[in-house]
């Protein structure tokens, strides 16, 4: 929901998703192409800065969204720094500090940070509906896009349904004891399964009522000054890539 909020409320909401997508893609490429960890870190910082200072996503918000990914990254990096050593003589397995671990850690960690920043840039500035429209322009497979559209829409319908059912169960002491909680949770799952089934049927009927006979077609949103925005994004993106190759 945090991502959703800022995707709709940032300063660059009206900027063409093609431009934002391009800049994000360049960020990815630059992060992976970066020869040195310092370069990748610099790219991560620049992309994060453009998200916060440029698009106006609040730093607190940004950090909260990034935190789970950062924690995951930290765990992954720690495991890189150590290696398992099998002692052939005794057959014992020992955990030891890998000799080249730190270098690897720095390289992978910095690149991942760069990629994360690039992904967050796109996610925090562009609503999914704009992204789907962009993918449609890029001729992504229709079936995939339809699934994306329906899943995204249903996500909110079902989060409401889960919330309502949970509240109704809690109001009747459904979660008063662990035993009751297990029972209620089972009930919730069963109820939701039926609802999914019902909703799918209802949507099918609603689609028929509006004359649908197969593919879901929608109007694409229009963005002003797309060429200019894409131009600027291309220049900024090339700058990032140049930086990646330049800092050796």
């Amino acid at each position, binding site marked *: 929901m945090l991502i959703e909020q800022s995707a709709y409320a940032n300063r660059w909401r009206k900027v063409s998703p093609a431009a934002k997508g391009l800049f994000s893609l360049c960020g990815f490429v630059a992060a992976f192409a970066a020869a040195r960890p310092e370069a990748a870190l610099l790219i991560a910082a620049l992309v994060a800065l453009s998200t916060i200072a440029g698009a106006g996503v609040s730093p607190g918000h940004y950090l909260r969204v990034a935190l789970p990914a950062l924690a995951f990254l930290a765990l992954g990096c720690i495991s890189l720094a150590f290696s398992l050593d099998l002692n052939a003589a005794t057959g014992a397995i020992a955990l030891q500090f890998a000799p080249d671990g730190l270098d690897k850690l720095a390289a992978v960690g910095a690149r991942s940070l760069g990629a994360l920043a690039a992904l967050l840039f796109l996610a925090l500035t562009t609503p999914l*509906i704009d992204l789907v429209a962009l993918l449609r322009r890029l001729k992504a497979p229709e079936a995939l896009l339809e699934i994306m559209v329906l899943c995204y829409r249903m996500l909110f319908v079902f989060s409401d349904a889960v919330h309502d059912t949970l509240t109704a169960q809690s109001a009747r002491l459904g979660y008063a004891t662990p035993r009751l909680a297990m029972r209620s949770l089972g009930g919730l799952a069963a109820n939701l399964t039926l609802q999914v089934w019902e909703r799918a049927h209802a949507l099918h009927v609603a689609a028929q009522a509006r004359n649908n006979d197969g593919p879901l077609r929608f109007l694409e949103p229009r963005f002003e000054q797309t060429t200019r925005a894409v131009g600027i994004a291309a220049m900024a993106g090339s700058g990032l890539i140049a930086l990646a190759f330049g800092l050796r």
Partner: protein
Amino acid sequence: MTLAIANRWTEALLALEQVGFSYPDGSIGLADCSLSILRGSRNALIGANGSGKTTVFQHTNGLLRPQAGEVRYAGQAIDYSRGGLRRLRSKVGMVFQNPDRQLFSASVLEDVSFGPFNLGLDSTTVRDRVAAALQAVGMSAFADKAVHHLSFGQKKRVCIAGVLAMEPELLVLDEPMAGLDYRMQEELLAVLDGLHARGITLLLATHDIDFAYRWADQIHLMRAGSCTASLDAVHLAEYAGELSAQGLPLPAVIPLQHGLTARGLLSREQRPRSCAELLAVLEGGQSAAGARP
């Protein structure tokens, strides 16, 4: 069963003739149900839960096919072939009770464009129609908003826009006022009046007898899968028995009007359809009585 409006049959836009329908689980949806909707009229379908209102609606749009009797549109029996249903559904628009069951896309603009694209229109025409439909329901400012950020009443209006963009002749709304607060109801009413002024025939289901009396030209009473009476709304007072069989009272303004007539404060010809109209009559605006605003 004799229909009060049988003599105006030629004007009927949509007619159910002795339609029977049972659901696969054996429950009866419609039994010998006949009713007709006149072109350009405002119709309210009144009946208790389970009386067959939704089943009637699904027949108007060809979502259900009668097992007995027939449904006629503009005098022609409905053709249930692919092409025939396509033609019917481009003329009969249907707005479901729960907007979350109708809205497909997470974007308002996209969802409203869904129907017109299904009609095979090109992007430019669709864009114009979407803009006009959103304008008609007062939602133009919300075109690029996400559906899940809208209130219930706003979602309902997007649903109506989604159907309006297909430019139907007959708009069918399943309990459009359900779940709306007073202000949203008034706003929706203004939207419906605007559509009626554009010549769109309206059919809606409601439990609110006061609203039906105030708003509709024609009222159809449903009971046990059958339409027990179709009447001009002004004659509703004569159907007190039928209403009470459904557990419904007469609209509050009717006993009030009768009481005032008995005391000589109101003439017999004056039939205000709402308390506001009655008040206008009593305050001297005699011309308001009988005439609709």
